[in-house]
């Protein structure tokens, strides 16, 4: 599959539309479709091998299951003859498809597998857009140190899985560097429904800062039960939960002041101008446009979250790489991706030689009066941090 | 040496003593019946002999081995076969397979492979006259046919002691007589089985048993040759009642 013969470039995706990752999967599909719309209709396609080609998106539902990933991926590659493939959501499923992509020498865009370990396996065609887990809390802790040098005690309470562990390991190292003291460091099983015993234990350590979470459901639960038990930290930061719009809806007042690191957020002000200032290449719709395209794509009044943004940004990376390589040959495109550095609504994009994302930095988001406000880094701020966080009622 | 020997066997359920210090013996080749009023502990005694329950006190010897704590499959290997009060053939297996299972795993077991066991089964099918049903699932048979299959299955185990719990309940007198003849025939001709049975049908008891043990309230009341036992006033009092006259009148 090397030529855009009939002017179409096919992107194949074994998406997760049902099963445990359905939510993230739906977002990713919407994000990809939104950017496709932009590339084909606003940008006018992709210039490759002397002609304009448009993007076509082909996706199946892998049900969030590893067996289906391999067969659907192979079908996309061999029967549908797609030119590029996207990985399903999560590190595990990304890994499940990797051997097939490698076998066929197919570019495999990882937009939802944050594990650093994927890139230690010697895969040649896996390219990451989501940032590695270890960097999530760097900013958060810097923020605390900057605002409140007296806050010392940090508690970590998080889901026992590969992703949350790598995030928390990063946080732990960062905390040590910045002179914090880790007073509590415990995990809970991934699909937990009651955290009370863990939180009673945490309460005893009387922390200033609580960092935790892992997924959306347990993040909600953690917040809720901290409130139930009357634990009042000065800062509460939850990964993969607090940044999503539904978080505030679900928790109402209890979300006030809760923070979370995010790859992207509705409200981040990356712009073409900003990119120019930094001397970076810019591509893609601006944020408002992206949100509008996303809503059109999913046919619902739904705000895109970072799952959508990541997947969309991965499409943009492909567009630039194809044009740069002026070829659809996976090896050429892979090389071009390796050299690529750009900015988009999603922020910076740049990978290292293993394919791992290193050019993207995160923002910290905080719920303030029912709105999500970007409070850190200062450069991206849309509002001042609320610190210490107001007590739970 | 007796084939089966029970010594001071007792079994309690909660506070109630179902079998109370019972001792008795069965000799090889003997036809013996256990009778007694309802709730006297006969079935419980049976289950103790057979290993479905373990006794709280006392000892049981079978074929010279102390089997008191043996699980029932080990007793079967020593040559103990039984039928159930309500027949329990393996419903989805054919008649032939049912009987072959007995041959495969019973006292004869260990030596027979599947093919040989099937052949043995065919012999017993002829014996009980169920040839027409050989390849039918046992679940589809009439109750009486099920009973026959169950007896054949127990016999195919080549038991030295055959235990039958109310095998003739629900049969009409003609069938009972046939069954009595059949079992006597097995004992005499095949020479394998000693039968101990629990029965309430006097026609069967009188026709088959040489000796009768009568139980009452868990304990042994009488253990004598059939005629004497059934004429014992205590037995008439607690068990036979008015039917004793009828029975004695007949023979």
């Amino acid at each position, binding site marked *: 599959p090397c030529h855009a013969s009939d002017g179409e470039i096919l992107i194949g995706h074994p998406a997760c539309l049902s099963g445990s990752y*359905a939510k993230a999967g739906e977002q990713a599909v919407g994000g990809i479709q939104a950017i496709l719309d932009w590339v084909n209709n606003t940008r006018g396609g992709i210039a490759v091998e002397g002609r304009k080609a448009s993007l076509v998106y082909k996706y199946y539902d892998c049900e969030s299951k590893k067996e289906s990933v391999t067969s659907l991926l192979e079908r996309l590659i061999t029967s549908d003859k797609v030119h590029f493939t996207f990985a399903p959501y999560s590190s595990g499923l990304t890994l499940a498809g990797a051997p097939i992509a490698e076998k066929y020498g197919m570019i495999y865009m990882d937009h939802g597998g944050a594990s650093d370990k994927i890139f230690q396996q010697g895969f040649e065609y896996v390219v990451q857009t989501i940032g590695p887990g270890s960097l999530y809390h760097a900013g958060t802790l810097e923020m605390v140190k900057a605002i409140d040098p007296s806050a010392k005690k940090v508690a970590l309470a998080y889901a026992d899985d590969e992703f949350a562990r790598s995030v928390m390991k990063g946080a732990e190292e960062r905390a040590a560097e910045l002179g914090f003291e880790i007073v509590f460091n415990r995990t809970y099983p991934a699909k937990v429904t*009651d955290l009370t015993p863990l939180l009673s234990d945490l309460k005893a350590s009387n922390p200033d800062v609580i960092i935790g979470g892992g997924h959306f*459901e347990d993040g909600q639960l953690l917040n809720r039960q901290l409130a139930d038990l009357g634990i009042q930290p000065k800062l509460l930061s939850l990964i993969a939960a607090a940044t999503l719009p539904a978080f505030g809806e679900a928790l109402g007042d209890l979300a006030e002041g809760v923070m979370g690191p995010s790859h992207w957020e509705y409200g981040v002000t990356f712009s073409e101008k900003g990119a120019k200032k930094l001397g970076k290449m810019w591509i893609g719709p601006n944020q408002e446009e992206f949100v509008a395209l996303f809503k059109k794509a999913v046919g619902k009044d739904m705000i895109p979250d970072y799952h959508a943004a990541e997947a969309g940004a991965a499409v943009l990376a492909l567009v630039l790489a194809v044009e740069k390589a002026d070829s659809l040959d996976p090896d050429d495109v892979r090389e071009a991706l390796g050299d690529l550095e750009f900015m988009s609504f999603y922020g910076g994009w740049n990978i290292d030689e293993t394919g791992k994302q290193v050019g993207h930095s995160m923002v910290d988001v905080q719920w303030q009066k029912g709105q999500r406000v970007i409070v850190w880094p200062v450069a991206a701020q849309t509002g001042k941090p609320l610190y210490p966080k107001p007590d739970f009622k | 040496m007796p084939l089966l020997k029970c010594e001071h066997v007792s079994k309690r359920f909660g506070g109630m003593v179902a079998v109370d210090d019972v001792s008795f013996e069965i000799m090889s080749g003997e036809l013996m019946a256990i009778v007694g009023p309802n709730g006297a502990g006969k079935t419980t005694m049976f289950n103790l002999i057979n290993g479905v329950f373990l006794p709280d006190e006392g000892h049981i010897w079978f074929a010279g081995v102390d089997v008191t704590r043996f699980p029932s499959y080990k007793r079967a290997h020593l040559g103990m076969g039984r039928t159930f009060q309500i027949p329990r053939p393996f419903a989805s297996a054919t008649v032939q397979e049912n009987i072959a299972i007995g041959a495969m795993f019973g006292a004869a077991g260990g030596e027979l492979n599947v093919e040989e066991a099937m052949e043995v089964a065919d012999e017993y099918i002829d014996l009980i006259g169920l040839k027409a049903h050989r390849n039918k699932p046992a679940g589809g048979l009439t109750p009486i046919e099920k009973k026959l299959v169950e007896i054949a299955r127990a016999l195919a185990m080549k038991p030295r002691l055959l235990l039958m719990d109310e095998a003739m309940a629900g049969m009409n007198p003609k069938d009972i007589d046939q069954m009595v003849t059949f079992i006597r025939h097995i004992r005499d001709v095949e020479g394998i089985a000693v039968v101990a049975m629990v029965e309430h049908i006097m026609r069967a008891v009188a026709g088959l048993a040489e000796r009768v043990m009568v139980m009452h309230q868990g304990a042994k009341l009488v253990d004598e040759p059939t005629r004497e036992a059934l004429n014992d006033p205590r037995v008439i009092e607690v068990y036979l009642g008015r039917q004793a006259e009828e029975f004695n009148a007949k023979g």
Partner: protein
Amino acid sequence: MFFEQLSGNLVQGLILGSVYGMATMGLSLIFGVLQVVNVGHGAFIMVGAFTALILFQSLGVPPILAIPVALLIGMCLGMIFYYGAVKPLVSPSGAGIRKVGRRQLGKAAGVFVAVMIAMRILSGVLDLNIAFSIFIAIILMYAFLVYVYGGRRQEKGPELATLLVTFSLGVILEEVVKQIFTSEARGYNWDLGKLDLGFTVLPFTKILASGGSLTVAVLLYLWFNKTRAGMAMRSVVEDSVGARVCGVNVDWQYALSFSLGIGLTVTSGVLLTMFIPVGINPYMGGGYTLKAFVIAVLGGLASPYGAFFGGVVFGLLENGSYTLLAALPGGEPFALTRFFSFVMLLVILLIRPTGLLRRKG
């Protein structure tokens, strides 16, 4: 400190356990009467959770008042599912499909095609997507088969087959709810204040949830043991032939207990959200199904109030053991509490192979 935490966790475990127990009673009831293991149990809990959520968020109905609504919804669902899918497999008097030949299947396929065409025409008006029309057409085709050719099959279907049916019913509920509400995790916020015990804090909603569970358990116990209708249902459990000759309408008792079991399960979904009012999503039931299975076995499987008891034991074990396991060096105490409670399950089953409350038969 240690004891303060331990007692805090035990109190929390007790409260949680009572809700767990409530969430298991429906499972036990259905198993006890119909010998059906409801593998889709969690999906019904999910329906209850959504009932509470929707009533509270869009109508402002406090969850405690959602209980009768949930019971009603659950019983209706139970009736529909019983007559539609479960009865053909379990009912001794047989309402299964007598015998499916080519002709019947042909006609059913005709119904399918007709419905598809109708939906195609209607889809412009109703704004249904294609998948949903196929779904409805399949259901109608199936209903056609069951009701038109539903006959007098006497032999019982293999009991295992009901596993597939209940599993699929759960999947259908999950998928339908997903289509309507998306797979977003939701929550609501019903605040009644808290009770501070010193060593732990209990929101009144939790206490209310636990009290509600206890009330339901007691009512169920009384109903089963003291009323004529409850005795009738028990008699069906014991011996359906015997019940029949006593004049009990056995088929109806089956339907009723299935529907009551589902009703209780949906209701428990409401109580669970009072306990944990977040994370409400179409797939939330899976974890509860596993727990309910274990609790049901602890309590003796066929006994609904045994299930309640089992739930309390399980809650105490799960929460109480944390404090002990956290005192051990290394390891992750929370995951180990799960390990510990499952080990306890096995130990209990070794000592009492038929659960805590069930006598050996």
